[in-house]
Structures are given as C-alpha cells and as structure tokens.
C-alpha cells in the first residue's frame, strides 16, 4: 500500500471515529437525568412561554431530527444557540480554538524540546547518581498536579516577584487587528510564558522517561556497537544512531501526549483564566449550557484525533521500514 492510500484510509477511519464519538456524546447528553432547560425556564414561565423556548432551541422536535441536525452541525459548524446568552455557539468558541492551540502547542513543543534530550542524557548516564536523581525529578514533575504547580507559579512569579501576569491572555481593553497580531504582541507573550512553562513542566516527563527506556533498549542493538566499531565518536554514536532510533516510540507517544494536552486544557486554562476552549467548556458545563459544552467537547475530540493522525504520519516519515499496511 502506498502512502497516498494509507493517508486516505487513515482519514476515513478518523472521520468514522469522530462521528462515533459525536454520537456517543449526543446520547450522553440526552440520557442525562433532569431537564437541561430547568435553570433557564424557571418557575415564573407559563406553559406557552416554556414551549416557545423549547422550540427556539429545537428541543420540541423528535429525537431523530435533533440527532440529524446535531450531526450535520459537525460539518456546517452550526452548533445552535447558547442556552445562556442565546448567541450562536460557533461565534463563541471560534476564537477560543486558536487560543487553546497556541497555548497547548507551545507547551507540548517545549516539553519535547526539554524532555527528549533529557531522557537521552539519563540513558547515557545509566547507573549513575545523576541518572537516579533525574528519574526521580521527572517522576516528581509527573506527580505534581498542573493546577497546583500553576498556583505555585502564580504565587511566586506574579504575587511575590511581580515578573509575570497572574492570568488571562492579554491586557484588558486592548484590541488587535487580527489573531496573528495578537499572538505576536509582547503583552501576549508575557501572558503565555507562565502557563506554557507550567504545562511543559508536567508534560516533559513523558518524553523524557520514554526516551530513556527507548535509548537503553536501542543501546543494546548490534548496530550501535558496530557504529562504535567504525571508530565513530561516542557523541555521534549516541546522537546519530542511538537517539535517532530511540525517537521512534516517542513519536507514537506524541499522539497520547497531545491527547492529554488537549484534555488538560480544561484544567490549565481554568487556573490561568486563559480564554480557551477548556475554560469555556468548564463554564458551560457548570451553567448547564449544553450546546456550548457539546461543541467545545467535539472540537477538543477533533483536535485529539488530528494529533493522532499527525503522529502516524511522522512515524511513517521517521521509520523507513513502515510499509503502510
């Protein structure tokens, strides 16, 4: 099977998976106990008024019609209206997708840039005190919940030292001509540093520990000994042969890491009041704003799947042995 076929098949698989997840979500919300509009309708409404409100949100229609409308919204992005504000859902979340992508993208890239060399370093120093200490340190980062390190970070860097803003994404009242202009502004970058570092401090441990294990395995391979035999310097052997081969499983783990990153946005964004999808979802779930909650969930799930797909492609690129079948 060629690359083209592989990509096509993978895309079809992912689309099917996506619709399956969307279907599960639809029935999850419909099966939930209680009336989603209970908070909205309240006690002071007459029967007619209540029915009218239901009609506005399409809740008077039979379930299969609702399901059809819901599934088409995956393609049209017409996710309906917010129960709370009455605004179109897409308008509310559109902007936030980018905010989440930039924050999570930055932290995952940072995590890999730190974690992979760190893991290689640990493997290289197998059996030393440095290695033990490094592994324990990585495990500590992995055990410290992000919302806690986030709080500590805010306390130290914003309240005590006053170096960085405590939260949110930009100074209030400032408007930008475009998203790009906003993302490249110094104020935005200042707001980005702390949350990105806090998340990266958690995420780096996964590539680091995986890279260590993977390197140790590769270092036992004959071709590493052979490279040494060829008179190649230790550093080159480690970098060009051991690390290069050890990287393969790390790429697969990228999909998992990205999945966690996307899901983790609900926590990180809440700590730092970052106006992204995750925080919006928490708000919507608390407020029983089902259309917004559903839409944010669907976008997050879509991002997870896209990350999976990209990891597949990268793996095929890095490992010449992959035959795509």
């Amino acid at each position, binding site marked *: 099977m060629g690359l083209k076929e592989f990509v096509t098949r993978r895309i079809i*698989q992912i689309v099917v*998976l*996506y619709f*399956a*997840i969307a279907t*599960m*979500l639809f029935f*999850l*919300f419909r099966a*939930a*106990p209680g009336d989603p509009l209970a908070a909205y309708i309240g006690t002071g409404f007459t029967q007619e008024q209540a029915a009218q409100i239901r009609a506005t949100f399409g809740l008077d229609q039979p379930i299969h019609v609702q399901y059809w409308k819901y599934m088409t919204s995956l393609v049209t992005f017409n996710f309906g209206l917010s129960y709370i504000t009455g605004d179109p859902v897409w308008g509310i979340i559109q902007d936030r997708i980018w905010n989440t992508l930039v924050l999570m993208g930055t932290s995952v890239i940072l995590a890999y840039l730190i974690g992979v060399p760190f893991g290689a370093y640990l493997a290289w120093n*197998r*059996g030393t005190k440095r290695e*033990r200490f490094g*592994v*324990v340190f990585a*495990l*500590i980062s*992995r*055990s*410290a*919940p*992000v*919302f*806690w*390190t986030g*709080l*500590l970070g*805010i*306390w130290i860097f914003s*309240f005590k030292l006053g170096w960085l803003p*405590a939260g949110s994404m930009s100074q209030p009242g400032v408007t930008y001509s475009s998203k790009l202009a906003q993302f490249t502004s110094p104020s935005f970058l200042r707001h980005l540093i702390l949350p990105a570092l806090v998340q990266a401090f958690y995420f780096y441990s996964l590539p680091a520990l995986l890279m260590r*294990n993977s390197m*140790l*395995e590769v270092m*036992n391979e004959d071709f590493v000994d052979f490279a040494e035999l060829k008179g190649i310097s230790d550093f080159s052997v480690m970098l060009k042969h051991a690390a290069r081969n050890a990287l393969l499983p790390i790429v697969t783990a990228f*999909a*998992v890491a990205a*999945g*966690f990153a*996307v*899901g983790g946005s*609900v*926590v990180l964004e*809440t*700590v730092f009041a970052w106006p992204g999808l*995750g925080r919006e*979802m*928490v708000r919507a*779930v*608390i407020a029983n704003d089902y259309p917004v*909650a559903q839409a*944010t*969930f669907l976008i*997050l*799930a879509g*991002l*997870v*799947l896209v990350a*999976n797909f990209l990891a597949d492609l990268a793996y095929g690129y890095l490992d010449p042995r992959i035959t795509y079948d």
Partner: protein
Amino acid sequence: MSDQNKTALDSESNVDALDTELSTWRERQADAWRRRLAFLKREPMGLAGILILLAIVLVAIFAPVIAPYEPTETDYGNSLAPPSAEHPLGTDSAGRDIFSQLVFGARPALQIGLLSAISVAFVGMNVGLVAGYYGGYVDDALMRLVDFAYGIPFTPFIIVLVALWEPSKWTIVGAIALLLWRQTARVVRSHVLNLKEKPFVKSARTVGASDRRIIYRHIAPNVLPLVFLYGSFAIAWAILTEAAISYLGFGDPTAVTWGQMLQSAQQSQALARDAWWWFTMPGIAIMLTVISAFLIGRGYEEQLNPELQEP
C-alpha cells in the same frame, strides 16, 4: 574418577534430594514470594514508593485518631491562621484546620485511586486477553473500541459524565474506568499475541483444553505482571484526575478532598493573602500519593524489562 565412586556419590545425592524435597514445600512457597518481592531490594525507588503508600494508607485508616479537629469544623475567629502549635499547618479562611483536612483527604484519594485501578485492570486485562486470543473480527472490533476510547479527550469526558449525573466518587471512579482501560488492553493484547504462539499454549490446545481454560489458566498468569504494572499507573492517574475534577468544582460537595481544598484556596484569594500553608500542603499530599504509585510501578517495570536493568 572411578565408576564406583561416581555411583556412590549419585546415590548419596539422591537421598539428599529426597530429603530436601520432603522438607521444603513450605520453603519453596516462601521462596516464590521472596522472588516476587526481591525487586524491592534491587530497586530502592520501588521500596520508597511502597513505604510512602503504606504511610498514607495508615493515615487514611486512622484519620479520626490522627486529626486534631473535625475537618469541617469552622472557627471564624481563627481564620487564615498561620501554622502554630494549635494548628500545625494553619487554618483556611473559614478557620478549618488544614492538617485535619489533609488527613481526612487521604481517604477519598485512596478509595478512588484503588477502585479505579482495580476496574481498569479488570476491564483492560479481559479486553486484551479476548482480543489477543481470538483475533479476527473480535480483535478488530475490540481494537476499534480501544481507538474510540483513545479518541475521547480524557478530562473533559469525565467532567461531562460527573456533571450530567451526580458528583459522587462512584461517578468519578466509573468515568475513569470507562476510559483508562484502553492502555492496559492494548499492552495485554500485544503480549497475548506473542504468548499464543508459545509451545505451552499450543500443547494445551492439542490436549483439548477449552478456550476459557487456556485464556485464564495458561495465558492470564503471564500477563498479570503487566496488568499489575498498568494498575499501579492507573492509581496515579485516577488520583490526579479526581484531584483535577474536584479542583474544577465537579467533585463530591460533601467530601473533604485535596483538590477541593485547592479550589477553595484559589477562590478565597489565598494567593493574594499569602496563605501559603493553605495552597501548598494539599498539593504536596497529592504529589506524594501519586509519586508512590509511580515509584512502585516503575521499580516493578525495571524488573520486568531486562534491558532496562543495570549491566
């Protein structure tokens, strides 16, 4: 050496062997356990993990004895008190004793961690065994289910489930178990694929053992170490997840949990008010519990994978 001598020696050692055989059934049992636990000696990190976890379990069991106050007992005259002899780790904005809350917080954390790990191990192992053993359509179907579980964003899914149903620890455990089995299933399955080709499985099949018997008597014991490994990681994930859920405000409102302490700390401006004892301690408690599970799993993993062992 002459043949005579040889025979003499042989019969002597035969008697020896018989003797040992008769007297050492117990010893061998003990040996098996010693071997199972031997990794602790070689893995000081694993030992540290077990000791930490044991300490936390003891704290959880004897919480009412250890805690000086009722964790929910308010004392507004004494709010935000820094650590003192009276309140060893200070109080929160409602004057509740931080130390007592920490002690009682160990209970839900451990309950959720262990219950989730058991469910994850149970589901993951069985899915992996069945998929790997039967192969074909069964395998395909179950592996698509694993893909499905991997495609769902973890924390958001749990938030939705907990928010739509009731915010109790049972819902949280159920939600975690619904997704987290995916990794165990995958790992077990690929291991079963290898085991299936081993002579002992093939000979069991020739003898006419039922599928069920082969799966659970012959294959399952060989994947148990892996299940244990991923189970210990599941404890860690479950505790972290529960803490995050509580922090976000979706936890059981009647329970005292570490995540909830951090939520109320942030909401009550503990950072701005410099009440460090309030927002540092719960995090340390979470971290210690989680790291103990990671350390145990990791120590065990190093033993399972000979390539990771010291040369």
